[in-house]
């Protein structure tokens, strides 16, 4: 039994932690939160690029460092802990995942080195307003090599250089298309969200030139949709690590406050009402962490259980983070609900991560669907 990260992976996590603590504490997220014009922290992102982080999981033949999913998981946890306002997730968990799994060799050779060197920030555009796209509910069309339609919300839409877009082709089959966002036929618009520390926007296409990703190996007649599902499953695991990092930060903050804050002549953390609440948060966090490890294992080993493990990891992480973030405010009392206190930053992030790649109800459906496939 070796259900843990290796010493090398743990030291990469420490390194990530130290960098973020020194260069990207919560004051950085706060600057982006306070300033509507800033969609991310450009300077922190540049430093990360210089450290090679943009290409951490890109194979060496495409100019990256060539580390694997497990390394990405431990870094994701720290990104979540410090609420890093950078396009790490959009570029690495979504954009690169789509290319690595679905792009032709030529396309990988062309695009991935640009990601690794920080020349290109990527994202994935799939949502189209209210609801979540189903196979039969995709409005954006890919016809004659061009995209038409509207996608919103899209993470990092205002700063991304390229996007992978979910569309339907001339045969009415879902496909993922790669698109350069710096063209006239793409209109961007900024959107306000509950979590302004991570920018979101809308992308409208008026015949924008794009290229379909067609090389997904697991694919059959429906490879575009399967590729999209594969990317979502990878992202679910990686976002789960961001979520458990955030949930851990909330528990640590609430615990520290409960030890130091006195009321009725004693630390509030000596009251069982607070103890039991924080014990519940701890239990939720540990279950989520354990399920996230399961997801990481499935992702890293290419296990058949990935759709099951990813859905379990995602639902667990959503539940743990949202619970930890809301109870963190509760433990802090009135001060916890001020703009000055950091509690609301986590609350906002916990909600936006709970929504970005589909909410818990959607992923619970996947859990049961996969169990049915396994058992019935």
């Amino acid at each position, binding site marked *: *039994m*070796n*259900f*843990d*990260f*290796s010493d090398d992976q743990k030291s990469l996590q420490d390194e990530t932690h130290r960098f973020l603590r020194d260069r990207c504490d919560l004051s950085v997220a706060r600057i982006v939160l306070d300033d509507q014009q800033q969609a991310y922290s450009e300077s922190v992102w540049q430093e990360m690029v210089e450290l090679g982080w943009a290409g951490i999981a890109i194979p060496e033949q495409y100019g990256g460092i060539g580390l694997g999913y*497990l390394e990405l998981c431990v870094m994701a946890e720290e990104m979540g802990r410090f609420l890093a306002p950078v396009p790490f997730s959009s570029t690495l968990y979504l954009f690169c995942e789509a290319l690595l799994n679905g792009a032709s060799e030529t396309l990988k050779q062309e695009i991935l080195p640009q990601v690794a060197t920080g020349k290109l920030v990527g994202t994935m555009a799939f949502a189209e307003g209210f609801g979540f796209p189903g196979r039969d509910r995709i409005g954006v069309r890919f016809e004659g090599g061009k995209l038409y339609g509207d996608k919103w919300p899209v993470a990092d839409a205002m700063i991304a250089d390229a996007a992978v877009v979910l569309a339907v082709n001339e045969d009415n089959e879902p496909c993922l298309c790669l698109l350069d966002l710096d063209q006239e036929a793409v209109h961007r618009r900024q959107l306000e969200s509950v979590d302004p520390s991570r920018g979101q926007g809308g992308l409208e296409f008026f015949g924008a030139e794009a290229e379909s990703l067609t090389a997904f190996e697991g694919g059959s007649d429906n490879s575009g949709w399967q590729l999209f599902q594969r990317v979502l499953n990878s992202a679910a695991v990686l976002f789960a690590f961001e979520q458990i990092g955030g949930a851990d930060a909330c*528990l640590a903050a609430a*615990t520290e406050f*409960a*030890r130091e804050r006195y009321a009725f002549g*004693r*630390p509030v*953390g*000596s009251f*069982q009402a*607070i*103890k*039991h609440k*924080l*014990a*519940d948060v*701890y*239990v939720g966090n*540990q*279950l*989520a962490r*354990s*399920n996230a*490890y*399961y997801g*990481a*294992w499935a992702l*890293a*080993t290419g296990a058949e259980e990935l759709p099951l493990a990813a859905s*379990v990891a995602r*639902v*667990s992480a959503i539940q743990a983070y949202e619970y930890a973030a809301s109870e963190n405010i509760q433990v802090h009392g009135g001060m916890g609900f001020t703009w000055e206190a950091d509690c609301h930053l986590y609350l906002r992030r916990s909600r936006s991560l709970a929504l970005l790649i589909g909410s818990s*109800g959607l992923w*619970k*459906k996947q*859990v*049961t669907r996969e*169990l*049915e496939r396994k*058992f*019935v």
Partner: protein
Amino acid sequence: MDFDDTPEEAEFRLEVRSWLAEQASAYSLKSFDDLSFERQLSLGREFQARKAERGYAKITWTQELGGMGGTPMQAVIYEQEEEKYNFPTVFFAISLGMPIPVMRRFATEAQQQRYLKPALRGEEVWCQLFSEPSAGSDLGGIRLKAVRDGDDWVLNGQKIWTSYAHISDFGIIVTRTDPAVAKHKGMTFFFVDMKSPGIEVRQIKQAAGGGEFCEVFFSDVRVPDGNRLGEINAGWSVAIATLMEERFAVTDAAGGGAQLEDTMHFLRRELGEGDGGLDDPCVREKIADWYIAESGINNFYARLLTGLSQGQLPGPEAALSKIVIARKLQAQSADIMDFCGPAGAIYPDFQVSRANDYRIAWLEAAGYRIAGGTDEILKNTIAERVLGLPGDIRVDKDIPFEELK
């Protein structure tokens, strides 16, 4: 990252597997419900004797003591493999889980020679006489009195919730020896012969019908001073050492009740297609919830075992498993009853055994949430010993025991 055994662990697992397979035909029954209690117990003793012969009864002990000199990980591997069958081992779980390790730690050399091996072989069963009517979660509140009389101590009072006292030959017991000092400072630990004059055992019929818990009454029971474990009035530290033994014993992921796979087949078979059955979104969401909790506990357990495999003993964080398992058992069993409609309350005979029946599990779960540490006490443990929150203010800490209410 993997779930694999090390080569040494894999080798041991194979050895255990093949031995268990040989025993299965004689000792592992689909259900023991049709056998008399005496027959179950005698089958249990036979199997236990075979286990002890192989050193499997206490894997981590030396061969000299009756073990096999194995690692804690090997002990877990044995349990994992044994659990795949249904051997009658339940009678010895407490006996070998707590009293016997305490005897190993605190009894004299001669006493160990006399008592350890017969217990490992299942010839003698031990119980743990801790809780009292007025001392459950607050074990420090015990009142059963032990008064010195020459070379003996005279015990008077009552114990309760003593598992398998009715079949026990011996018991370890914590008593009040000095009521004039604070509660934790006036307790002394002994072991007693359960056949001593003045001991009366009564089984308690539980809400779910089971009777393995007992009340034990002590009237002028004489216990030689030689049976004392630890110093006079230092019984609290012996009791704590005993409870520590319990720690890893309760963290296993198996929680009884209906298995998910069986349940899904059952719902499909009995409730058919469409609304109300396995296709119903309400049913599907519940199934996802159960599995997410189950997976969380199994994967948490895998992380604990990883530590154990690398030589780290689990800390107080292991307490979380029982909180989650007991609550999940209660909720999941009630959900399955709900899906069945009014028939969910009826006991038609279609489940494999009592242990996997959701109606029985539903009722028993109410007890699991209390036995071996209530949900609330375990949450205190996590809050204080894992998160480092300050202890509760203890109003009885420095007051002589006899002045407490």
